[in-house]
């Protein structure tokens, strides 16, 4: 009997063409023309002429990451699912096959569209108010049992109920061990110390359950790469301040994917270097990444991912996607001189991951959502904010008015409120989102 390829295998096969692409827009466009609509839309998001090299490296990483997981799994390595707010570097150093739960679903959605997978968890009885990012991943495993993990790391407790609860459901349903990392409510030294102990408890447990130890020499090597990423990230943050805006909108999306699926790998470093060099070059020439720039926007949640073409469309209408909350990584370089400094550095970095950092505590607390969005608005000279209101995201919806009022009253920055599912195009289609953004931008003057 012929085995049906899994969704990931199908995605990897579909994306295979990217690996051989030359670095020019016409090649990307030609490939897009041969692909089904969702995959074509995905590629069209990457067609800023200045950033083709960066885009192709990013797209290749999609494929490399998928292929690597499939290969590692075939070699019998343990498949470890982790939330996007957890550093994959540790799992890489344990020689596992690390799978970011959200990316596991997002990548196939971007490439293939896969509404049937989004619906599967609802058919299994789960509430329809859980996050689209999880629905797709959970649905994939409901449909394709062979993709199930061997172990789960749940970094959601404290910052997002549906995220954390879904990971618990996965562990119980598939009968795999889970390690819960409890994010404390505050963001002070006491909290960091608590979280470091949580992190150590998790590492010990993970080693015990999987029988796979952390290879600290390998971890040092990986962290040195991710430290280089961090330095490049900060350099690019400085370049973002330039006017006209020198980065392609797709940069921010790929930053997140680099973090979720390939952080600590040389290819991710290469991605940041290309982005930095391209932006630097444009700044030196006094040019922007796209012409006729009208507004610099801060997306106070994330982007909308089901229609990647949106990011290129924004450029075409003069809107810069300067920053989003999920792409805000106030990471520090990790001291790799000892095992302790590496583990503590990773723990500290985890507590500063998007969502954990902003939403574990009060909306207006230290490192809370308001503080970060106010800081970014000022730092990056933002004209307008856009909240891509993911309907599953109760903790942001629950304080949205507080933060939009603060941005407006204290900085004079208006916020557009979208109601959507960042992964499911059936809730609010891309066409409606574009109309709303156009109308909003036209009010800015």
């Amino acid at each position: 009997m012929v085995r049906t390829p899994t969704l990931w295998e199908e995605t990897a096969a579909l994306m295979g063409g990217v690996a051989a692409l030359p670095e020019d827009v016409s090649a990307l466009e030609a490939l897009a023309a041969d692909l089904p609509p969702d995959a074509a839309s995905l590629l069209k998001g990457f067609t800023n002429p200045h950033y083709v090299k960066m885009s192709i490296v990013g797209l290749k990483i999609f494929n490399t990451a998928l292929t690597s997981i499939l290969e590692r799994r075939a070699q019998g390595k343990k498949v470890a699912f982790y939330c996007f707010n957890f550093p994959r570097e540790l799992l890489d150093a344990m020689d596992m096959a690390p799978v970011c739960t959200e990316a596991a679903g997002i990548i196939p959605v971007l490439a293939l569209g896969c509404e049937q997978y989004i619906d599967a968890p609802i058919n299994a009885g789960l509430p329809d108010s859980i996050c689209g990012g999880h629905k797709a991943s959970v649905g994939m495993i409901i449909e394709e049992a062979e993709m199930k993990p061997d172990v789960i790391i749940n970094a959601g407790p404290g910052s997002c109920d549906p995220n954390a609860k879904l990971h618990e459901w996965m562990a119980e349903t598939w009968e795999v061990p889970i390690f819960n990392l409890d994010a404390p409510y505050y963001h002070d030294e006491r909290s960091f110390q608590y979280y470091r102990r949580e992190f150590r408890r998790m590492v010990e447990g993970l080693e015990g359950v999987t029988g796979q130890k952390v290879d600290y020499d390998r971890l040092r090597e990986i962290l040195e790469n991710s430290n280089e990423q961090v330095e490049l990230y900060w350099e690019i943050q400085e370049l973002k301040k330039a006017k006209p805006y020198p980065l392609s909108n797709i940069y921010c999306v790929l930053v997140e994917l680099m973090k979720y699926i390939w952080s600590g790998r040389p290819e991710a470093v290469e991605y940041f270097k290309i982005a930095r060099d391209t932006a630097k070059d444009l700044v030196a020439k006094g040019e922007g990444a796209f012409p006729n720039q009208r507004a610099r926007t801060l997306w106070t949640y994330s982007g909308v991912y089901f229609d990647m073409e949106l990011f290129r469309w924004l450029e075409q209408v003069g809107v810069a996607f300067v920053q989003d909350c999920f792409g805000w990584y106030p990471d520090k370089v990790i001291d790799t001189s000892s095992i302790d400094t590496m583990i503590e550095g990773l723990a500290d970095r985890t507590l500063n991951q998007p969502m954990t950092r902003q939403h574990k505590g009060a909306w207006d607390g230290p490192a809370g959502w308001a503080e970060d969005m106010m800081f970014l608005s000022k730092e990056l000279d933002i004209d307008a904010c856009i909240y891509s209101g993911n309907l599953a995201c109760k903790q942001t919806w629950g304080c949205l008015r507080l933060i939009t009022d603060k941005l407006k009253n204290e900085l004079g920055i208006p916020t557009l409120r979208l109601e959507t599912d960042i992964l499911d195009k059936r809730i609010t289609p891309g066409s409606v989102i574009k109309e709303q953004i156009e109308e909003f931008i036209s009010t800015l003057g």
Partner: protein
Amino acid sequence: MVTKEAEELTQICETLSNPYLEDWKKEGGKIVGYACTYVPEEIIHAAGMLPYRIRGTGCVGTSLADTWLTRIANCSFARSILELALTGEYDFLDGVVFNNGCDHTRRGFENWKAQQNTPSFMYMLPVPHVITDDGLQWYREEVNSFKDAMEQSFGIEIKDEKLKEAVKVYNETRSLLKQLYELRTQKNPPISGAETLKILLASVSMPREKFNQLLRELLIEIRSREGISDYRARLMLVGSINDDPELIELIEDIGGLVVTDSLCFGARFFWDLDEETGDPMDSITARYYYHIPCPRMYGALPQRLDFLMSAVKEAAVDGVILQSIKFCDLHGVENVLEQKALEKAGIPTLKIEREYGPLADTGRFRTRVQAFLEQIGK
């Protein structure tokens, strides 16, 4: 015959305020509202104040609250509480304490706190989401900070002897409520689920010593009742928060007698006792931290299932209703896990999503329960 005690205790829940609270205020007493089973009431009691469990009673719409907590993503219980706060219904509170219990309520608290006319004491008492030694230590420190904040804000001292007294008073309530729950396990329970909830609501809405006295007297009367025999099925109610006796009446009106529960306005709230020896702060902290865990506590599903299964067995239930308020993912997901465990054990279940209180779709709920009763052959 309805006794005076029964009448008093079952009427208190009908409104947010009640004559006991009015008398308490008239005598210069302070009332501190709290919203979750992880807030140690004993500390408030030992401070000489009246701990009052915040609820959504009497809310007839959420138009104001919806401009802060959105109706497209936030739960109707949290919105109802906020509505009552915004419309001044909670003006009798001198202080408010919330936990980071769930995303809806913690944000509800923040929206409340951000308003201009709030009680002067608005306090967040964070609780870890895991049950570990380290988590206990964290919580202990938080409970200490809460006590310190109460002392500072109200200019009082909370003494150990008062804490010890509070432990005794609250343990008595828990023991009395347990007796009440034990009576419900009888073949012909002398009390309905709706009446039980009303009594529970009274316990958190009036001076506790007075409540204990009334419940002691009422228990004597309840024991003498003939018992309810004309029911079709013995049911257990689990899931999202419910402070609405009408929801249970809806079930009981069509013959489903609610004989036990796993709810935070229910067994989960009073089941465990404080240790009465040793340091009272240690005892209180441990009791609240380790009590039957809410679904917000990760890694604690086995404890929740143990309690669920033992309650099913003790009360000889015919079926379990697993309900969740729309957008309550903690219970929405938990219910799927509990349903699986119950069905594996051969216990019939009804899993249903609902809205809270004034927004409830009661007709649909009633029909689904009716269908469930028929499905289980009752």
